[in-house]
């Protein structure tokens, strides 16, 4: 029987990307130089109480209007916790919010924390997608980034996940660090491709304020990243990954057809999601909120029965639309403007001249053909059954807008003028 895959799995913009749940695990054994996420090292003694608080916080949540179509465990390093404990949290989500059949349930994993046994445990706990932080397969680059695992360990992790039976495996790479040559990055790309994961994320190293890396750059001990060079590396990623059958569906994300991350596509479609755990963000219909960042405070809040919410913002309709455009255009499919206005109201008229300017500058282009769903029967061994260009049939007469290749690299210009 031929059933359609959701657009989110296709990596295509959609006005209804489902409903997501994000869970944050704010612990790492070691914090990397470049990392500005909400994560803490040396708090092992808090792990159990944190899980208990997290579960309790989920269970006291009033519930969701619809079951989750995607769940994502991020960090930090979720796999610092035993699979069974992660399973407990997932169970609480299922009980409180409900999880739709066929939902994508992802967990992030760091190579040094996983092996085949752990992956089997994660599968048993209910996870069906794993995202592994490979970052690089070149020792000096890993060292420069402050990663504690070896290149071999990263490859082992990818293989272990596949061997354990994970059908959806993603590998993360970081490129454009000052220690990395073009050859280094090519080696990392080729090494990852050789393991045939379904999905690859490749991020340009960003020097974020307040990180140890920022201090190193500011004091001249590490050279700053070179945006021109990073643009070249991005091109290299597209070449190598494209040749291996991966399509870029977002600025920094490539997947085999039908293997995009539904949860992340939901973010780019400005969809609704709940966020649980310390420093998690949620968004429901223009209301955004975030929780307290420190694990200790989070635990204390739950223990004393007060909210873990630390702040929120209410978006005006126009700001929400601008944000949705900024996010939606990150997707390679672009945004279906008619559907966009149906959801956000007549917000494009005021942006008409900005759009025309971006079109004239060659940063965005109008598209009249919109990808439609890919039959799920073509899934399976993607490398043989789905060719690189067979991304579903195309719906003619659409009113789409997407970033050009050049525009993608200048996404901030595009985003800023459409906000």
């Amino acid at each position, binding site marked *: 029987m031929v059933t359609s895959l959701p657009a989110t799995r296709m990596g295509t913009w959609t006005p209804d990307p489902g409903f997501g749940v*994000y869970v944050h695990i704010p612990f790492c054994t070691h914090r990397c130089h470049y990392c500005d996420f909400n994560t803490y090292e040396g708090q092992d003694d808090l792990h159990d109480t944190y899980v208990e608080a997290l579960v309790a916080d989920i269970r006291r949540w009033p519930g969701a209007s619809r079951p989750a179509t995607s769940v994502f465990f991020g960090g930090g390093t979720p796999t610092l916790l035993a699979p069974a404990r992660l399973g407990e949290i997932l169970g609480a989500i299922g009980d409180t919010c409900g999880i739709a059949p066929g939902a994508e349930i992802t967990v992030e994993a760091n190579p040094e924390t996983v092996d085949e046994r752990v992956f089997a445990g994660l599968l048993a706990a209910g996870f069906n997608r794993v995202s592994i932080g490979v970052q690089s397969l070149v020792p000096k680059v890993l060292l420069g980034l402050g990663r504690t695992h070896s290149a071999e360990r990263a490859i082992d992790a990818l293989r272990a996940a596949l061997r354990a039976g994970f059908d959806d495996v993603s590998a993360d790479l970081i490129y454009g660090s000052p220690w990395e040559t073009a050859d280094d990055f090519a080696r990392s790309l080729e090494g990852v491709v050789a393991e045939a994961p379904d999905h690859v994320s490749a991020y340009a190293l960003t020097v974020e304020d307040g990180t140890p890396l920022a201090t190193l750059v500011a004091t001249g001990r590490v050279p700053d990243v070179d*945006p021109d060079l*990073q643009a070249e590396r991005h091109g290299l990623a597209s070449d190598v990954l494209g040749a291996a059958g991966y399509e870029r569906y977002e*600025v920094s994300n490539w997947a085999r057809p039908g293997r995009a991350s539904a949860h992340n596509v939901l973010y780019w479609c400005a969809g609704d999601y709940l966020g649980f755990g310390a420093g998690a963000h949620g*968004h429901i219909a223009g209301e955004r909120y975030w929780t307290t960042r420190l694990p200790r405070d989070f635990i204390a809040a739950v223990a004393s029965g007060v909210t873990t919410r630390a702040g929120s913002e209410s978006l005006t309709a126009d700001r929400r639309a601008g944000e949705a455009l900024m996010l939606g255009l990150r997707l390679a499919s672009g945004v279906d403007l008619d559907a966009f206005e149906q959801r956000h109201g007549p917000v494009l008229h005021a942006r008409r001249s900005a759009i025309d300017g971006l079109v004239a500058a060659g940063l965005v282009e109008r598209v009249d053909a919109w990808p439609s769903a890919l039959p799920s029967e073509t899934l399976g061994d993607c490398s043989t059954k789905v060719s690189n260009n067979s991304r579903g049939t195309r719906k003619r007469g659409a009113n789409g807008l997407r970033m050009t290749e050049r525009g993608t*690299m*200048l*996404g901030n210009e595009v985003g*800023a003028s459409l906000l």
Partner: protein
Amino acid sequence: MDLPHQRAIAVIAHIDHGKSTLSDRLLQLTHTVSDRDMREQYLDRMDLERERGITIKAAAVRMEYKADDGETYEINLIDTPGHVDFGYEVSRSLAACDGVLLLVDAAQGIEAQTLTNLYLAVDAGLEIIPILNKIDLPAAQPDKYAEEIAGLVACDPADVLRISAKTGEGVEGVLEAIIARVPAPNGEPNAPLRALVFDSVYDTFRGVIAYVRVIDGVLKSRMPIRFMVAKKDFEADEIGVMAPGPMPVDELNTGEVGYVIAGIKEVSLAKVGDTITSKDKSAEEPLAGYREPKPMVFAGIYPIEGDDFPLLRDALEKLKLNDAAFVYEPESSGALGFGFRCGFLGLLHMEIVRERLEREFDLSLIATAPSVGYEVELMDGKKLDVRNPTDMPDPGGIVEISEPYVSVMVVTPSEYIGTVMQLCQERRGELKEMHYLSPERAEIRYHMPLGEIIFDFFDQLKSGTKGYASLDYEPVGLKPSKLVKVDVLLNQQPVDAFSTIVHREKAYDYGKRMTERLRKLIPRQMFDVPIQAAIGSRVIARETVRAKRKDVIAKCYGGDVTRKRKLLEKQKEGKKKMKQIGAVEVPQSAFIEALKIDQEPAST
């Protein structure tokens, strides 16, 4: 006091050679100021003067001195501005004097500026009393410099007085020399009034205070008076003398020095050099030597915040009340917005005006690179005055461009003669004269385009001679030159603030310097931005700001949205503040930086 008992003198001295200290001592010795009231640099009243160590506005002080011959004399000490920009004012101060004190530092010898003023005094036929000051300094070489000065003023080295204004040693002798050597004035007491205005300042409460010396006749209180050049009539509300504070008197007799207050609203109605006469019994001719103040250096002055334009306009209006030599007219620039093209006597004058605007009116300003005024002869025979390079017509329609030349005098230790000559030669100087003041020091005179010295010539001269050389210059008229206008274009659009007029042979250097500088200052855009320097349509230098290739947030997930949106909102706000030159967005700070650097020594 009767004529034989009158003396009016000025002090000619280089900065720091002790003029103010000598004045202080004279005030004390003549009991004009009591020891109790004495404070340093008594006469330098404006705080601006004191900060810079130079005198901008002259003051005149009356002192009474009982000489060795038993008679009491009235000595008027007329202060002179000490800088090259105010040469005309100096000449008018000197015209009000009977003699001058040539005050020279016994450890340093005479400097260029002093030499120029000395020549002015000699030309005016004034008695010169040469004085070596600071003989108490260990480094003093009075014999050597007495020799040098005697050569210059054609006197016996023994006639050069040796004093220390600081300790008071020999100052009494200065007073005696004034009485003995300086002739009394020889005006005509019964002739119609002619009083020379040698300075005028604006006072918020009293209006203009004109400082005058009565050359002929008598100036009486309440008398209807006429400014002969300005052709304006007033009534002398108050006349008085400075002793040293203002002291009203009923009349100022022939030879006397004092002030007149007549309800005059701005100094341009009582200009330096004008002659006051009696309205009822007018003199036939004004005193000779009046000259319209002529601005020599021009620059655009713009508020950094466009909203400050009305404040700047008001400030300039107020400033003009007190400064007849300063001129301004509104102009607008694509790069800098609305501002004013201002004309100054010289660079120092420009700096003073700018500083006063910033300090007294609390304005943040940006000034374009200074330029001189050009005279352009057009194909159709018309002549055009160009004070802003932007106004220079197309090269095709021009027969000839003339630029102002100055006679530059440099006094330098002999070992730096080569350096100085090289510097002057590089600036298109033409050697006119060189002679040794002594075996160790030389006076060098060049004719040079003013445009070549208004930037950094003085800085270069100072650094090339370890600070020993001194400089002075005076205008000598216009001369045709091979000048071209160099435009700077951003993405084919000329940027008016960077247009300049230079000698043909220097056009390339300017173009290269400016394009390189701008390449570093202009942020990368969505497209390649060529920066060109061009003469007419001929491009002489080119740089390119390469298009931005990557500017995108790498990670943007659920937890990042608010922060990333704010980042882009900030980016958008920043864009709004940029100036649009064609399609190129340039931050205001880039213009400010580019213009700022131009006033620093060039790295040639």
